[in-house]
């Protein structure tokens, strides 16, 4: 039953120094492959510095869904000698290395697979900056993968639209021609077949089938179509290679975001960059104030004045916001907060990942108050989480956290961001203008009609003090209790609609007594590994971590013989949460806390051991 987890997946690694454009090269190749109809996953690893450290981008692609990247490389584009030394142990048998030059030892070791590609020299000859040398490697890779270059140019033009178009296209051409002249052939170096090219949909076929036609040097088909992966159904939308930060930002935009406020902190900074860069198109206003404290307090002011606002930071930045987070709940202001985890405590490992802040965010802020925490597992879910978070914040007038992590925030995957189900809910807005408006009117569902300053004959008073229904400070015992009950009534109302929300997702063999539980970006490796497991298993992804959907989780876990909990932290925080909420104890934990994500082959081995 067990298959090689790397078959059917082709992986290109690009390694170089920080500042060499490793990330951009990876994104360009990813966009190219996506346009050709492949499913792509791009990871990017880098240390916390600007120049000189080793940067590495890995592009895994296949005709079926690729849930996470694969460690084993079929092509290594080495922009310096260091990249060869660091990654040579990750090469598949017969993998090809492209480099400007090789040490004699390398040539001895890799023989004909060590291919000299004149990257730096070509960009110099063109008078283009050294960073453009990536394009030469990109062209060479296109040839190696059997992608027909003339047809590729159109796609490349789109990819390089804003980035020194002419030089990059020319350099890609040089790389392609270089390999062609060498008549470079290699038995294992061929892109996975696009097996659906005989699709009945003509338009679809012409877009996807590029690689298979023409006089491409295609050799054998490596790919094995995985049965577990659903066929693509575009519904008129096109897929894009997108990371979780951008997808989350697009979700906010789709739900009518007015303002985004952020202070840079890896790995949440991508949200700030995306929304800032897209302001003129989207109309969203983006502000970067002096600190995280300013970020959240500014956002509270914006929400009070009636505009839809979101903020974002790494958990360290969110830690600075605790007092104001609690204020959002007391003042009942709608606020969306993206919290992206990285390896902590303290500054920790800034550019690497972790899932160690689950328990922190569900308990964050002083005092007892309702909040919503959604933990998407991939870019598509991050998109929906962004949109839903904004709607939920307004509907329930409370803070909503979308919990991300470095992997989800910064790694990209082919995704379909579909906004057709996004509602743009504004909740209960007051139409009371008789002069007796009270912002905190007690209602059966706990939700008071919202009004905003600037409304005639209406006084809108909000405060972080406990207050009466008009928003004036009140500390009498009965009024304190009444207001706490009112705020928690919102949770009761919310519980009633949990059954309509996608709080828990189940995949795989839903009748299996063996269950794998996971959350957040661990979805990627778990879903990937599930393609190759020895035994049928049920996969349960918990998306809503607060409020916890006790009923659904109990339904899915009840009667299980084995519950394997998989997460990237030391303490098994989800296992603890499941036990607290349902009384169900997981039977096994697979925990990883070295700040790196699960690697497919390693995780496969671990799960199979637990299942046997």
């Amino acid at each position, binding site marked *: 039953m067990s298959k090689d987890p790397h078959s059917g997946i082709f992986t290109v690694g690009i390694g170089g120094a920080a500042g060499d454009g490793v990330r951009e090269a990876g994104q360009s190749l990813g966009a190219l492959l996506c346009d050709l109809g492949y499913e792509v996953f791009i990871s990017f690893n880098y240390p916390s510095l600007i120049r000189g450290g080793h940067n590495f981008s890995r592009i895994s692609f296949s005709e079926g869904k690729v849930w996470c990247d694969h460690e084993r490389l079929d092509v290594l584009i080495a922009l310096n000698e260091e990249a060869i030394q660091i990654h040579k142990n990750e090469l598949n048998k017969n993998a090809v290395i492209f480099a400007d030059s090789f040490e004699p030892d390398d040539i001895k070791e890799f023989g004909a697979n060590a291919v000299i590609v004149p990257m730096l020299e070509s960009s110099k000859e063109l008078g283009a900056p050294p960073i453009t040398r990536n394009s030469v490697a990109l062209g060479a890779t296109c040839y190696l993968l059997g992608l027909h270059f003339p047809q590729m140019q159109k796609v490349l033009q789109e990819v390089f639209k804003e980035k020194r178009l002419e030089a990059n296209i020319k350099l890609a051409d040089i790389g392609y021609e270089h390999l062609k002249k060498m008549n470079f052939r290699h038995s294992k170096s061929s892109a996975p077949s696009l097996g659906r090219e005989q699709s009945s949909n003509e338009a679809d076929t012409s877009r996807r089938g590029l690689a298979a036609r023409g006089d491409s040097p295609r050799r054998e088909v490596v790919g094995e179509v995985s049965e577990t992966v659903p066929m693509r159904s575009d519904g008129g939308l096109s897929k894009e290679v997108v990371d979780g930060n951008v997808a989350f930002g697009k979700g906010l935009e789709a739900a009518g975001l007015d303002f985004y406020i952020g202070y840079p902190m890896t790995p949440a900074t991508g949200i700030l960059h995306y929304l800032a860069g897209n302001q003129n198109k989207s109309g969203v206003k983006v502000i970067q104030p002096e600190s995280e404290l300013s970020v959240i*307090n500014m956002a509270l002011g914006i929400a009070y004045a009636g505009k839809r606002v979101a903020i974002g930071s790494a958990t360290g930045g969110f830690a600075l916001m605790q007092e104001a987070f609690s204020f959002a709940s007391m003042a009942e202001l709608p606020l969306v907060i993206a919290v992206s985890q990285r390896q902590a405590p303290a500054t920790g490992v800034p550019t690497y990942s972790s899932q160690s802040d689950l328990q922190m965010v569900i308990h964050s802020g002083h005092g007892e108050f309702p909040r919503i925490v959604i933990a998407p597992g991939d870019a598509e879910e991050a998109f929906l989480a962004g949109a839903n978070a904004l709607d939920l914040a307004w509907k329930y007038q409370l803070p909503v956290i979308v919990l991300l992590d470095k992997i989800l925030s910064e790694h990209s995957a082919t995704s379909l961001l579909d906004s057709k189900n996004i509602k743009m809910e504004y909740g209960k807005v007051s139409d009371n203008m008789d002069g007796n408006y009270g912002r905190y009117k007690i209602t059966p569902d706990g939700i008071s009609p919202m009004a905003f300053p600037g409304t005639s004959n209406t006084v809108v008073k909000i405060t972080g003090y406990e207050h009466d229904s008009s928003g*004036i400070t009140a500390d009498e015992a009965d009024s304190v209790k009444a207001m706490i009950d009112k705020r928690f009534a919102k949770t009761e109302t919310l519980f009633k609609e949990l059954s309509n929300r996608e709080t828990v997702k189940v995949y795989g063999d839903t009748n299996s007594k063996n269950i794998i539980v996971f959350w957040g970006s661990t979805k990627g490796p778990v879903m990937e590994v599930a393609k190759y497991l020895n035994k049928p298993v049920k996969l349960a992804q918990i998306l809503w971590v607060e409020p916890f959907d006790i009923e659904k989780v109990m339904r899915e876990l009840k009667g299980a013989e084995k519950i394997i909990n998989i997460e990237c932290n030391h303490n098994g925080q989800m296992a603890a949460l499941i036990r607290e909420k349902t009384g169900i104890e997981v039977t096994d934990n697979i925990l990883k806390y070295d700040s790196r994500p699960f690697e497919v082959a390693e995780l496969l081995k671990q799960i199979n051991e637990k299942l046997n």
Partner: protein
Amino acid sequence: MKNSINLTTKSKITWCPGCPNSQILVALRQVIEDMVKDNRLKIENVVMAAGIGCHGKITDYLNTNSFTGLHGRVIPAMTGIKCANPNLTVIGSCGDGDAYSEGLEHLIHAARRNSDIKIFIHDNQLFALTTGQASARSPKGFKGKSTPFGSIEEPFNPLLAMLAVGATFVARTYAGDIQGTKRVIQAAVIHKGFSFVDIIQPCITFFDTIDFFKERIFWIDEKEPVNDLKKAMELVNRDNDKVPLGIFYNVEKATFEGQIHNI
């Protein structure tokens, strides 16, 4: 009567009897009432903000829109309010503990970016609501509950700092002079851009400086130009022999919120 408004609320005033905070409240309320009567302000467009401290009770005593924020953190909230709806007039009270001790960075950055908000500091030179500890404004040697042997720190000069970081309206007034305070408050509200007013508000319970200031305050000549930064800095940097009151600096610059909405 046209435009007649009642700005009082049901809240019982709990400042100490005789506290100059009540004088600031009266001055502020009258300025708003006058400006609404004259059609220079729409009452629904007024937002009063406050932080935490004795001053912060002011929002309970004014029947206007209000945002009672966190200690030291109301200034960014005010900028947020103005960004979200530039039609609003955002007036904020802060204490010296609330703006100069905790959250000083917000005051400086709001001034630097010329956020179109009006800040009035109820400056009593100590923490009063927490029953008398030194603040960034307490003089060296100040004996409070947390500094029983006298504060060893030099006090902060807020006016000089505000001028240095680019505030476009910088003034000082004395709470006991209600008419003078009204004039300054009104000019600050009318100013387009960041208005900063330090209001000397002696704490009659924990640090009674009424006699000290009565001997030293004087109003600067209103006819003097208000666009001379160097002169303004000299004026606010003099020793404590005399304490000048008035508008030291008043210039126009593009506002933060105006630029945000012009992208």
